[in-house]
């Protein structure tokens, strides 16, 4: 029973963080077939924005997360104007954008490393938004309040995004673009603006996900790398562009990772989900939560 | 040229192709004999291209039997079917964009007849180059052989596809809308080329919406509608067939074509 609760608690936590990061990735792929390899560094930056706000500026802690979300969104827009905006007409856009954002992400990450080395000499920093180890018990398993906050925050943010996509006219424009870019353009949707917006939303969510991640470990310039790969695994499992599927897949990945970590050993967690995604790609490339007709091209 | 005694070159029996619930090809039968020229017409979405996809193995049949020279090919892959002797063009202007016309044709000439072994041969044989020259000549492309496909006008792209298919020296050539999007002048050019092929004795299945082209070239016409065959016979009968006129041609066109045929006769 203990194991079981532990797996659920930890799996839900991982799952929530991955879901926040992955929903954005899926949204961006759906809108204009861009896989953003600088997503990971945006998660990292999200954690730093909160740190900056709370530690350096000393402003109220409660607003650190919204601040980080907005800044993350801005970074997303900047990423768009530094890369995709100029490349979207390229013949091999899907491939070239990966390499371009890979380079961009690498540049930001290394720049950040250098910058931080000069600014804060005493790394590592702990996330100011972390509630520490205060916890309550579920079936004798201690569950920290931090996790509770993460679950709630992820749930609320994703629900807001869902309502936004379904109920607002801007959201409908985004969904129209995702379904058929050319038709949307013909119907007067300003697709370019949709692209920026989508990338900004995705990056804002990624930034919040970064805060959550750093609340368990310290804030570090390289912290976004692994979670980004996991978010990619999630959207591949779901079938690229399948947003609802990405939510399920995120929980699945979280639970699988938690089970392996609890039952086997910490170090096999990543290996297990890598095996999962490799098998999924071989047997069902359209995604295990995807419809069979999703194009593989 | 068709006669009942010999085995057909291509025999299709009860061929179905479903896309989900849609029967794009519905219980289709067709016999093609060596030397035949068969024209397939029918409204947009009738399933003509899908039928070619099925025969050529690009998109295998859901059920049914397809025999080439008595050999079942319904479940074979496209490259194997090509090796067995069926070669096709595409309705969309397909091509190997970065290559020259000659290289495009060379692909058909050097792989279309078979490609044995796990480590295939590295160099081209003399016959391969000869096949290229012949195909280019048949399609009137010799003088443009070094041009790169991506820069070609529509007519040349159509011819290029035919040359590539011919370079495999097929027993059966499938041509999908060779004159779609061409002006009347160019249509005549293509017609002349196809007539040349017919004179060479190539067996052809031809899809075309331009009825003038279809009727003049084919000796047997098949009209498809909703995946089914609604007419098979000669072109005269076609123009007076009530159903064909109703679903496809319309009264005006049928009259006009009847006049045209009468003038030619």
């Amino acid at each position, binding site marked *: 029973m203990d194991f079981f609760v532990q797996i659920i608690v930890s799996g839900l936590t991982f799952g929530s963080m991955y879901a926040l990061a992955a929903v954005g990735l899926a949204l961006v792929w759906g809108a204009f077939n861009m896989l953003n390899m600088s997503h990971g560094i945006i998660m990292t930056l999200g954690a730093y924005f909160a740190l900056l706000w709370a530690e350096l500026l000393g402003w109220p802690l409660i607003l650190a997360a919204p601040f980080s979300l907005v800044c993350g969104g801005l970074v997303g827009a900047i990423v768009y104007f530094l890369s995709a905006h100029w490349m979207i007409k390229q013949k091999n856009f899907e491939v070239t954008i990966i390499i371009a954002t890979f*380079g961009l992400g690498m*540049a930001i990450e*290394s720049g950040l490393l250098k910058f931080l080395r000069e600014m804060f000499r005493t790394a590592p920093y702990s996330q100011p938004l972390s509630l520490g180890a205060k916890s309550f018990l579920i079936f004798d398993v201690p569950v920290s309040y931090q996790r509770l906050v993460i679950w709630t925050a992820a749930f609320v943010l994703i629900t807001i995004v869902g309502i936004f996509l379904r109920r607002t006219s801007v959201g409908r424009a985004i969904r129209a673009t995702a379904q058929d870019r050319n038709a949307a353009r013909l119907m007067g949707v300003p697709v370019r603006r949709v692209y920026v917006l989508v990338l900004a939303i995705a990056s804002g969510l990624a930034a919040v996900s970064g805060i959550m991640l750093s609340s368990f470990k310290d804030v570090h310039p390289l912290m976004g790398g692994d979670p980004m790969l996991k978010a990619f695994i999630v959207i591949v499992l779901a079938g690229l562009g399948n947003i609802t599927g990405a939510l399920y897949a995120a929980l699945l990945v979280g639970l699988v990772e938690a089970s392996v970590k609890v039952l086997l050993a910490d170090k096999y967690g990543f290996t297990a989900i890598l095996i999962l*995604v490799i098998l999924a790609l071989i047997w069902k490339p359209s995604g295990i939560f995807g419809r069979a007709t999703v194009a593989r091209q | 040229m068709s006669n009942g005694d010999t085995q057909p070159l291509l025999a299709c029996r009860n061929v179905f192709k479903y896309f989900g619930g849609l029967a794009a090809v519905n219980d289709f039968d067709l016999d093609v004999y060596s030397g035949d020229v068969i024209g397939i017409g029918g409204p947009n979405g009738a399933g003509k291209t899908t039928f070619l996809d099925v025969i050529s193995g*690009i998109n295998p049949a859901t059920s049914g039997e397809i025999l080439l020279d008595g050999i079942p090919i319904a479940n074979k892959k496209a490259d194997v079917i090509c090796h067995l002797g069926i070669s096709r063009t595409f309705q969309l202007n397909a091509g190997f964009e970065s290559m020259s016309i000659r290289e495009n044709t060379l692909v058909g000439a050097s792989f279309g007849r078979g*490609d044995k072994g*796990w480590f295939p041969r590295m160099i081209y044989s003399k016959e391969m180059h000869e096949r290229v020259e012949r195909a280019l000549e048949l399609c009137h492309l010799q003088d443009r052989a070094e041009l790169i496909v991506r820069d070609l006008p529509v007519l040349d792209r159509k011819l290029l596809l035919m040359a590539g298919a011919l370079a495999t020296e097929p027993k059966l050539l499938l041509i999908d809308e060779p004159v779609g999007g061409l002006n009347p002048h160019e249509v005549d050019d293509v017609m002349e080329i196809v007539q040349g092929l017919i004179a060479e004795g190539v067996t052809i299945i031809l899809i075309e919406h331009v009825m003038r082209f279809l009727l003049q070239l084919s000796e047997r016409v098949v009209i498809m509608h909703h995946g089914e065959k609604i007419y098979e016979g000669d072109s005269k009968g076609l123009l007076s067939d009530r159903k064909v006129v109703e679903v496809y041609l319309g009264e005006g066109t049928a009259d006009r074509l009847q006049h045209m045929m009468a003038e030619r006769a």
Partner: protein
Amino acid sequence: MKRRDYIIFAVLLGLAIAYPWINPPRYLLASVLLMFCYATVVSQWNLVFGLAGIFSLGQVAIFASGSYITAILGRYLEWSLWYTFPVAGVGGVFFSLLIGLACLRLRGIYVALLTLAVSQMMFILIQTDAMCSALNKKVNPATCVSFTGGAQGLGDFGSFGWRDVFGGRNWIIGDYYTMLVLLVIALIFTFIVTNSRIGLAFMALRDNEELARSRGISQFKYQLLVFAMSAFLTAVAGSFYAAHFGSVGTDLMGFALLLFLISMLVVGGIGRPWGPLLGAFLLMAADEVFKEASDWRNVGLGIVVLIFMVFLPEGLAGALDKLWNRGIQLVTGRLQSGGTRADGE
């Protein structure tokens, strides 16, 4: 391939042969020989990515597998490294065939994702390998080293052995020429494949798979072929790399090397015959420059990659080719049709 290209090749080869004789500083010699190694890998990658149009990121994993095979055979079985090279090459071919099989039904971006997952997996498996291996006990009983060396990497497995031939200081010249021979073989191999009938099949599948299949080309066969053919020299380059440095580590599978090598491909020009060489040269040169400001190295490289992808997706070789053709057009006043094609004619 035009006469121009043969001349370029001859001149470059002459320069490369002569270079050690002008007594360059040792670190430069080492950089140039490393460039040869990377150029070899990138030229083979160009076969998969440029010629066959398969966006595989597995090349770096194959390179690493070559290194590890050599290191393991040299360390535990105490083979002379010269025997390990062909074994590493064949091992790399098998590994690559497996990757190719797994990718068979995938297209475009999905191939990149799968190959990335495979190399990441290899990275993690080795990184987390911490069990003291019994094999190592036999060789070196005092230490606890895992079979693959884990996060610390493996050493102590020998070298090319040029120290015995050329003496203590000049062994690097031996390494230099060994690497040069490998690169020349790789370039000739790529040239032959590109211009062969097999190369035509690769290009046909790249340009239009459906058409290629209905012209009699088996996608199955040629996809496996290109994975196999491009792997041998890649893996051998990996084992040469190991032999030169005398140690291997997980950084061989890390993102930094992947980005560095893919930048070479991109900056040089994907699918261009001179792309890999040009790219390897430029990035090693840039690396040399950025080395002064070591912290800025990756920032610089990242920005270079970004700029090239945005403004020159055809790479420098592509841009130069266009310039050259425009020049010829100006001179001869005649339209050159072959200007923009993506292979080496």
